[in-house]
């Protein structure tokens, strides 16, 4: 059994240099997007099939009371209980033993279901290849004993990589340090969606970073949803049946009322 790997993103350490964003493109040979400066440093504006990781630049609403500029590295969370993998109708998305969730480009049909299912809006459809792409935690590097490109590049240690237990330990240790310095933090991804292989140490509320406070697996309670469609649907059918049944004689009347016989 391979050990489960994980990435820890220590948001408090990120300086928004975007070395990781470029390293990702370089290692994975994703082409640059044509962008415009729109008034924020964040660019490209959002993840895409060619942009697998992206630094969000956030000037919080309450800046004037508490000036800060927040940066969060967006990328696939590699969930333990990965909804994308569960809904992939061809099995192109696979959860590997080491925890990496990856999309086999030779199998993906480009149905784009995972794109809509992911609670973090991560997988993106590539019009050029007709498949869906996302961060694969540099599986090729990891297999060869290297860290993902972003982790290697990050100058501040905001991105680190190792075994899941190791990363959890690091996260807890950092949490203690920050606690002592007066910041309470949350290890996002420790338990969310069954735990994730990319964990964030968040010094602020998750929602400030555009993360759902309590991410939910969209497929949970799916059975009830089916029932909620089926039972009223059946009721409608019964109603139709009853109506038509009651109207049978009227139908006969209508038929005989007709001036000319068509049958």
């Amino acid at each position: 059994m391979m050990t489960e790997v994980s990435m820890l993103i220590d948001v408090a350490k990120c300086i928004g240099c975007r070395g990781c964003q470029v390293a990702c493109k370089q290692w994975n040979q994703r082409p640059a997007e044509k962008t415009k400066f729109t008034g924020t440093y964040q660019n490209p504006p959002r993840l895409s099939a060619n942009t697998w990781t992206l630094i969000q630049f956030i000037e919080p609403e309450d800046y004037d009371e508490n000036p800060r500029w927040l940066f969060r590295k967006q990328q696939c969370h590699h969930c333990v209980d990965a909804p994308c993998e569960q809904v992939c109708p061809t099995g192109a998305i696979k959860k590997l033993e080491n925890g990496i969730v990856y999309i086999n480009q030779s199998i993906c049909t480009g149905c784009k279901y995972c794109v809509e299912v992911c609670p973090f809006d991560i997988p993106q459809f590539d019009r050029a290849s007709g498949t869906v792409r996302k961060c694969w935690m540099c599986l090729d590097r990891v297999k060869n004993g290297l860290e993902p490109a972003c982790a290697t590049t990050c100058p501040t240690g905001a991105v680190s990589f190792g075994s899941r237990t190791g990363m959890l330990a690091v996260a807890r240790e950092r949490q203690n340090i920050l606690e002592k310095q007066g910041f309470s933090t949350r290890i996002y991804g420790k338990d969310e969606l069954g735990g994730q292989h990319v964990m964030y140490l968040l010094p602020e509320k998750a929602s400030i970073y555009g993360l759902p406070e309590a991410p939910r697996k969209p497929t949970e309670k799916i059975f009830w949803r089916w029932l909620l469609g089926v039972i009223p649907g059946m009721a409608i059918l019964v109603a139709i049946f009853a109506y038509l049944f009651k109207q049978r004689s009227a139908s006969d009347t209508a038929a005989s009322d007709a001036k000319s016989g068509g049958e």
Partner: protein
Amino acid sequence: MTNHWIDIRNADRIMIIGSNAAENHPISFKWVTKAIERGAKLISVDPRFTRTSSKAHIYAPMRSGTDIAFINGLIKYVLDDMEKNPQNYNMEYVHEYTNASFLIDPAFKLPGDLNGVFSGYDKNKRTYNKDTWKYQLDGKGIPIKDKSLKDRNCVFQLLKRHVSRYDAKTVCSITGTPEDTYLDVCKTFAESGRPGKAGTIMYAMGTTQHTYGTQNIRGYAILQLLLANMGVAGGGINALRGESNVQGSTDHCILFHILPGYLATPDEEDVSVDSYSKNHYEGKNKDPKSANWWDNARKYIVSLLKAWYGDRATPADDFAYGYLPKREVDRDYSHISLFEAMYDGTIKGMLCMGQNPAVGGPNAQKERKALEKLDWLVCADLWETDTANFWRRPKADNLNDLVDPAAIKTEVFLLPAAASVEKEGSITNSGRWSQWRYTAVHPPGKAKSDLWILDRLFKAVSARYKNQGGPISAAILDMQWNYGSADEPDVHAVAKEINGYDLTTGKLLPSFGKLNADGTTSSGNWLYCASYTEAGNMAARRNGIDPSNIGLYAEWSWCWPVNRRIIYNRASVDMKGRPWDKEHPVIAFEGVALDGKYVTKKWIGDVPDGGWYPLMNPDGTLRDDARYPFIMKPEGHARIFGMGRADGPLPEHYEPLESPLDKNPMGHAEAINPAIKLWHKDRPEGNEIGTPADFPIVGTTYRVTEHWQAGAMTRNLPWLVELMPDVFVEMSRELASEKGIKNGNRVIVTTARGTLEGVACVTSRFKPFQLNGKVVHQIGIPWHWGYAGLSRGSSANCLTPHVGDANTMIPEYKAFLCDVKKKGVA
């Protein structure tokens, strides 16, 4: 840097001022982050809230160009606090290692007493006669000291009087910093003065690129000396150099006023090695306990001449010293002067290697015009730069409205150059570490290394002189040029020549202590002597062990001087040689003591700044065979009072050349630095200066992480262009709403010299400054863009003026006056 990158992790207080290290030196934050993890406090001082500020415990906004007021106020805070709580400061350091106790000529006057100038000012020449800026000497010619620091004329008291005018309220009315924030900064940084604690100042171009940039740094130096932060681990004043190898290029004399190893360039009065040495270096010290290292300069200049002229440099011939070009006394040959001379047609040709002045030079429109006056221009670069392209440049900010190429006669040559990873050689980082690198990939196409290009150029010029003769052709033809016969010159031969040889044995020298003035040694750069020895190429060492535990990594690469990782480290120990900071000792004396006296010499840790005995024996008696710690100064003491500067021995606040205020807020007559050259007065053409009435907004320029300098290297890389696709103008919400500008609008910025078009970046991170009830707005623009390459945009330097620092002539890029409006609005 007096210290080095890794050492930042040892700091307890970090002040980043005049620098946006997180954005422009992201790797520095590896160490800043480690320091913060240890509990260090980070202070970010900047006109706007940057990515650096985002990590700071205290963010202090400060109007561009007011560093001196900011720092003088801090110095005042420290001096006041020192009086109340001397136990929180290292007073032994102050009176023993700095010139605080030295008595100054009683005729010396401070600007507070002389309406804004120091004594000796000549208004017509705009220069100082420094006769009164000197120590009082005793009968032996040794400076007189008052270790009690009470004498009215001692440096300490002078400084106290000088900064007494900079109380927090006054300071904040100049800088626009909220007073409580300012006091928080003062208190927090002053805490680094406790014995055993260390504070570092990280600075960059935001400090230097002012008409008083040198004085800004002087301010830091004074503060750090009072806080005993020089020479210690986690201390120092650390210049974050803007390019990976700018430290190396400065060491190897890229600037006009120095030869390799910071030897002065000779001027007309230095007619011989002897007069050169005497005029600049010798006889400056009578105190036997001062090492006065520059006393050795004669050895260095002679060894340099031996490296250059080899056997032709003989004692009989004054070591070919006569071949060296001499500058006119006090004439400046800096960037602005060169371009003004080009503009006049005095300079006919330019070799432009790895530089892009059409984007990077101040008053860029004028400099682009100056290029038109050249007969020829050679650009060696990775891409066709804006400079190489100047003959089809836009007339103004409209990128598609071009000048007429037919009207420009300059012949332009473009030499494709190899990038740093495409050639072998050393790169010296800001921490003075010379690190050897290898060719990772071969240069594409016909691109060649700079060494190759210079080698061919030299050979071609020599051949020309040989065939056709010419004035002082011997200066070229006698030059020693032995870098092998291969196509690519032997870079190791160059590195060895820089290190130097014992010419009697032909062996590489182990260190500059072995250099002689008699012609028996050579060294292309005395500071680098020890970098390539018989033991091998020191810069190529890659041993990652660190027995010091403070991150010296003494066997990783090599660092000048003599692999000393923290310079002035003799100040990190007390007079008995014991480290102030027991946790992070840089060096420590471990000689044997007998009867209270040291009898053997042994320093451990970093290479000490001179291996002499400590100043004091364990029993408290002073030793005569010891030397003061600041060996590069004639008096052996660090200078709080710095008489060497052109514009004053202590920093005084002046406004930038273009200031939003109509007079000096310190209340005296001199609004701007009285010792700067006024180009707009001497040479008005193209050097217009704006007034606050027309241009009420302060402008500044800066860089972003995603682009590099004048942009040729990065504006051509799609991955980086994607991140930062266009030039933008950062401004406060308040200014934007005053001007009817929305985030993302295209805006036009104007100064007296030019215009720029960019995208508005309206942000809370910029706030208007409140200066004594007056609201002053500031905007900021990254200066990477130009008209050539993949990502094109207006150049911020079309806005900046031709004016430079009084000492260095570095241009004042960082503060000017401008106006901004929405594009299309009259």
